[in-house]
């Protein structure tokens, strides 16, 4: 084993003192063993460099793959929420119906089957308010009365003093004057 072998890596890295470089390079040209070693050191350095990149990429990849189940779970949960809302709306009547049925089943079994008052109560509440509401919602004609002095309508002295006329204006629902009637 020659002494130069211990300096091959430093020469490869450009870390050899300048006064030793020439001698080492001359030896490398002549020594096949050192050339082979140098090639091996160069190759293993390259592999090591690539290996570092692989480690970094693998860890980054591992971090991404950790997020995949998390994101997938979030997506499934979101989908379930969106699916649950329309289903609840559709199922609302079907939930109410069995409840009524369930309530109606024990009613005949009760010892006091007197449905008559219920019917009368239902009629009162069902008919009377509806009629009132219809009357309320009919458009009513507004009437406006305006007192007009006679002097404003006739020349002075034509009518006795202090006489007034009343103008009754019927206002249509749209706000326009529908009818005017003047009376004393």
């Amino acid at each position: 084993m020659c002494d130069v072998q211990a300096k091959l890596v430093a020469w490869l890295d450009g870390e050899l003192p300048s006064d030793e470089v020439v001698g080492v390079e001359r030896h490398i040209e002549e020594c096949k063993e050192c050339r082979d070693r140098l090639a091996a050191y160069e190759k293993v350095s390259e592999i090591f460099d690539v290996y570092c990149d692989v480690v970094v990429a693998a860890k980054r990849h591992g971090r991404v793959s950790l997020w995949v189940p998390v994101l997938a779970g979030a997506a499934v949960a979101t989908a379930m929420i969106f699916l649950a809302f329309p289903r609840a709306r559709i199922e609302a009547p079907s939930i109410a119906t069995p409840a009524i049925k369930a309530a109606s089943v024990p009613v005949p079994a009760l010892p006091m089957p007197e449905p008559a008052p219920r019917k009368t109560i239902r009629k009162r509440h069902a008919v009377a308010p509806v009629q009132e509401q219809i009357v309320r919602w009919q458009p009513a004609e507004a009437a406006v009365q305006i007192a007009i002095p006679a002097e404003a309508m006739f020349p002075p002295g034509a009518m006795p003093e202090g006489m007034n006329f009343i103008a009754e204006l019927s206002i249509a629902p749209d706000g326009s004057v529908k009818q005017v009637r003047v009376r004393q």
Partner: protein
Amino acid sequence: MSDDSVPLALPLLRLATGSSEVTTLYRELRKPLLRYLVCLGLTSDEAQDVVQDAFLSLQRHLASDGAQENIRGWLFRVAHNQARNRQTSYHRQFGERLDSEMDFLAHDATPEQRVLEKEKFRRLAAAIRLLTEPERECLLLRAGGLHYREIGEVLGIATSTVADTVERAIKKLAEKCNV
């Protein structure tokens, strides 16, 4: 071994004058720092945190008129020390088997090439596990582009020791990997 001062292609003298130089440094050294930290055993998130902290420390260092020589070595040293403080993850995974993770990297290669690549990395991983901690650290810093003098500053050892350690580690890997 050479103890000459290492010229850095960075505008170090103007660092304190503005943040654009720090931004340039960040763009240049962020990836090598991240790679070094991840290979030390930190997770990607931990490495990101450490790099950010290191650059914050750099800003404070420059704002307080700290030394502007060998900023690259300074940053690696700060990051290295912060990584060491995270003892639970330090050296956790470097050298572990990466069989399943390597599948997505070699998708362009033929099946035969993929098998060979995997075998090559498997042998290297096994060889890395046989290295001592200083040997691994020296090789990682060397792979990060640091000079022996800078590696010595990061690890707190002499430049000649770095040269011996690197040479010994490379020899071990070459023998174990059969290259």
